């Protein structure tokens, strides 16, 4: 029973104005999920947030000021899990070295990866041919 239910692929220029589009797609997908036993409203917000943060990182940190650079985002959903991949063409970074923010001394940045890890079940960042891919999984069962 692992046939994909929904598959979405979006390719956008590295511009923050498209974050709303990406986030909204996540929000809407959560509303359409059948059989999700958890809090659907919360999942809507979380998917919106996770897609926004991951795409914003690909735009902010992985773009050599090439106006033709793009970010590719895929969302695959099957019975078991929701899988998000965000592809960038940057120099990459070490996900393991990103620490939990120090909430006693809050800083303006550095909360994005924390949100992704908090709301989703698995996060990896891997170098591929012409760039990198951040893969995020949320188990639905």
């Amino acid at each position, binding site marked *: 029973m692992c046939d994909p239910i929904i598959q979405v692929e979006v390719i956008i220029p590295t511009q*923050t104005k498209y*974050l709303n589009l990406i986030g909204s797609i996540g929000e809407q997908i959560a509303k359409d999920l059948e059989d999700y036993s958890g809090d659907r409203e919360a999942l809507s*917000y979380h998917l919106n947030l996770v897609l926004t*943060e991951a795409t914003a990182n690909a735009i*902010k940190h992985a773009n050599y000021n090439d106006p033709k650079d793009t970010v590719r985002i895929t969302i695959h959903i099957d019975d078991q899990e929701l899988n998000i991949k965000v592809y960038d063409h940057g120099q990459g970074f070490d996900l393991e070295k990103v620490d939990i923010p120090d*909430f006693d001394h809050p*800083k*303006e*940045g550095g*909360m994005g990866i924390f949100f992704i890890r908090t709301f989703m079940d698995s996060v990896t960042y891997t170098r591929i041919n012409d760039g990198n891919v951040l893969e995020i999984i949320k188990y639905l069962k």
Partner: protein
Amino acid sequence: MNANLEKINGYSVVNVLEERIDAHNSAGLKEIFLHLIEQGEADIIVQLDRVRFIDSSGLGALLSGHKNAMAKSGRFILAGCKQQVVSMFELTRLNRIFEIYVDLTEALGSQN
């Protein structure tokens, strides 16, 4: 960043007119706070009642406003936050840092 400014009882009230604060408009919000504080207006109320979504950069913009207002011995008050927004403050413990009131009336009626 779509927002308008009012002056009420000595406070600069920033009405955020967006439903969404993310990396696209958070720098604009930060600018608004900086600009007010540079002009000596360090008592700020941010009306967030329209905001349904805030990301890490939006939280960063609020934190920046807070820090700069504090540095000038001002106040930095958030009003009208929806539950989703409050949840984000709670997760990052920013609810311990921000002064938060249900609405503008409560915010204006509050004593420092």
